[in-house]
């Protein structure tokens, strides 16, 4: 009882302005810090590079936003990306041997695989969570393992090279990264879906109070299913673009990045408790913030082990801020 009474003493009220503008403050401090450490950091060229590098993961962040606003979770996104990338690489190997790689049809197949793999995993998650009511954490942990297993078996743990995807993932059009244009287009579309359509509003309602939503006749199961489907499809696409960016796909391809994706969303103000968050500016802020950290550390020649520490710190910070902001049952 004493501790319960003592909690309000750690006044979250005093923290309120910080929490509200926290990400912006962190962002500015980071730019100042990295900028003073390396004079090439705060340049237009680097800003474009940063956006380009953050874009594939950013597309997965848009997807996970849809799952998080219904108080769901998707741990399978990173392995979804891996499976998508591996199957694309195998198909490209086959097409390379047949000499058909580079034709328009080959790109249709490549994109088809990415979206198909994503949709399959998304649907599996959707059925498990929405239809059978399995806790999202466990359902998506299961599909994560299955996706990784299939990818390892299919690839025989080999490293694949996919230089042909470079023009999409690393190319520029009028000096602007193509992947970032794709990211911006998707942000535009999915912000519209979440903000302006009845479907999006229903998702927000479900995230706020799923039982009430059910009671007043919103089709909770179907809406949830589609949220996981969207998340899966965008993760599959992210896998394709990430593969093109690195040029190579090894067994550790984006391993563990589901937490980076989730914490990007949470840093962008999308609550793990559901019912709160936006694609624009929310998810975009998270994407850019995490991108800045990764880019800045690269420029400082930080030790690879330091990334893990920073990644942990980012997740901690994001979740802590989210928990403090959560108002409990008084909704």
């Amino acid at each position, binding site marked *: 009882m004493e501790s319960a009474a003592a909690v309000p003493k750690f006044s979250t009220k005093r923290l309120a302005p910080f929490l509200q503008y926290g990400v912006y403050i962190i962002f500015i401090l980071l730019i100042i810090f990295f900028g003073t450490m390396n004079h090439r950091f705060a340049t237009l060229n680097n800003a474009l590079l940063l956006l380009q590098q953050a874009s594939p993961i950013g597309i997965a962040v848009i997807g996970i936003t849809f799952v998080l606003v219904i108080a769901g979770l998707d741990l399978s996104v990173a392995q979804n990306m891996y499976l998508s990338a591996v199957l694309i690489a195998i198909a490209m190997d086959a097409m390379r041997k047949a000499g058909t790689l580079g034709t328009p049809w080959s790109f249709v197949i490549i994109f088809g695989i990415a979206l198909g793999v994503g949709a399959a995993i998304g649907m599996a998650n959707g059925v498990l969570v929405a239809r059978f009511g399995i806790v999202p954490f466990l359902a998506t942990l299961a599909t994560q393992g299955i996706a990784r297993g299939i990818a390892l078996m299919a690839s025989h743990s080999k490293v694949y090279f996919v230089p042909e995807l470079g023009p999409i993932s690393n190319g520029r059009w009028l000096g602007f990264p193509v992947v970032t244009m794709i990211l911006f287009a998707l942000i535009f579309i999915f912000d519209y879906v979440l903000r302006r*359509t009845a479907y999006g*509003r229903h998702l927000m309602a479900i995230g706020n109070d799923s039982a009430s939503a059910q009671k007043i*006749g919103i089709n909770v199961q179907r809406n949830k299913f589609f949220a996981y489907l969207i998340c899966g499809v965008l993760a599959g696409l992210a896998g394709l673009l990430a593969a093109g960016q690195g040029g190579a796909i090894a067994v550790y391809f984006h391993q563990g990045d589901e937490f980076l994706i989730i914490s990007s969303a949470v840093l962008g103000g999308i609550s793990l408790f559901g*019912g709160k968050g936006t694609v624009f500016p929310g998810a975009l802020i998270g994407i850019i913030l995490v991108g800045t950290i990764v880019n800045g550390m690269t420029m400082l020649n930080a030790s690879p082990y330091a990334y893990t520490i920073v990644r942990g710190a980012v997740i901690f910070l994001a979740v802590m801020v989210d928990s403090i902001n959560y108002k409990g049952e008084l*909704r």
Partner: protein
Amino acid sequence: MNEENILVLKDIDKSFFGAKVLHNINLEVRKGEILGLVGENGAGKSTLMNILGGVLPPDTGSMELKGQPYSPSNPRDADKAGIAFIHQELSLFSNLTVAENMFIDDLPTGVLWSVQYDKIRSKAREYIEKFGVHTTSDTKVETLSMGIRQTIEITKALIKNAEIIIFDEPTTSLSQTEKDNLFNIIHQLIERGVTIIYISHIIEDVFSLCERIAVLRDGNLVGVEDKDKITKNQIIKMMVGRELSQVYPTVEKKIGDVVYRATKIKRGTTVNDVSFEMRKGEIVGLFGLMGAGRTELARCLFGVDSIDSGDMEFKGKRYHKVTPELGISAGVSFVTEDRRQEGLLMPKTVKDNIVLARLNQLQGSLGMVSRRREDQEADKVINELNVKVQNKNKQAAKNLSGGNQQKVVLSKWLLNKPSMFIMDEPTRGVDVGSKYEIYTIINNMAKDGATVLFISSEMEELMGICDRIMVMYKGRIVAEVPKGDYSQEKIISHALGGEN
């Protein structure tokens, strides 16, 4: 059937797991009336309403709505038939705006599936004006008070042309002004030709609002009476099946020496220079209006909040600073209306909750706890305190009525045989029958030599079971009324800061 009956229930039966919860209910609701529905918790009110709302099907029996057979298979059917529910937990989404909430289940969409915000905003504004809701269409619901939220919920029902609106304990989270406002709105609804079923355990409210009152007891409809032809006491009698004179149990007991003394307790301005004494075996009432400082004083006495100055003496030992841990080890217990915080594990079964605090006593060799002894212990408590539970191994604590939850909480405290109890509104949200049993438990504790400080905002119950009543006003104890001098007027005038 009578033409003025808008809704007729015929021979409704319902059982859960073999236990009958509704027996042969026959009820007629007249068009344009306010029908009160009262009954103790567990009397079957919610089950009956769930059947009406299409949440549950009846086992047997039939319903007629406006002369037509009515058999809803889900809440949507009830909705379409023009029956709306206003529950104590509202089904509004706090993260959406007022306009979005009003039309969320039927959002009009236009180009590219986009929601036609212009349309719902202007419609919402129209309704807001029509019903005098103090808000705007673009306000987020999370910023609104409970009263306004409830008005929005009612507006939602009217948008759907509801002809029957069922209010289920609507006043529990409302302030007095909001409650008055709600009653005004209900009268307006009647003028619009809406029929109202009003469920509440606050009999005063039902009396001031309703024309006819239906009483449920243990799944039976014991009567439907016109308000003018019945008294409050008769209704209570029908609800609990016993005379009002028995509502307050008495017990032969001996009041001993002073065991507790608080001297000049002060905390800010909320508790100001409070001194009093309590004796062994005494039940002392503490009355005061909202904001008088009752709860604050209780928290100081138990050490939940620190005091600025003053000290306490308990069983001859002086304390300048108390903490809950110190209090418990000295034999003081603190029971509040907040049963969740009292350590009742809501999703756990009744048995688990009872046994949890006793595991140390129940464990045998190697720390193993025998199932059989757990069962015996749980049964013992359930019998002693008369906890109404259908299946102690399956029923979760959250499915118990408020009164029975409170009994389970008390059983936990009783285990350590405390010599002093501080009870802050222990009967709030508890039905009449369980209240009686809680009073009996308190009486028995006093008989066994415990000292009880009983805080309540219900003057009647204090007068019923306390040996004397202290009255607080603005953080001070302004009067002490001994048992022989009890009168409502006297106590209230002290609580209002009067002189006499």
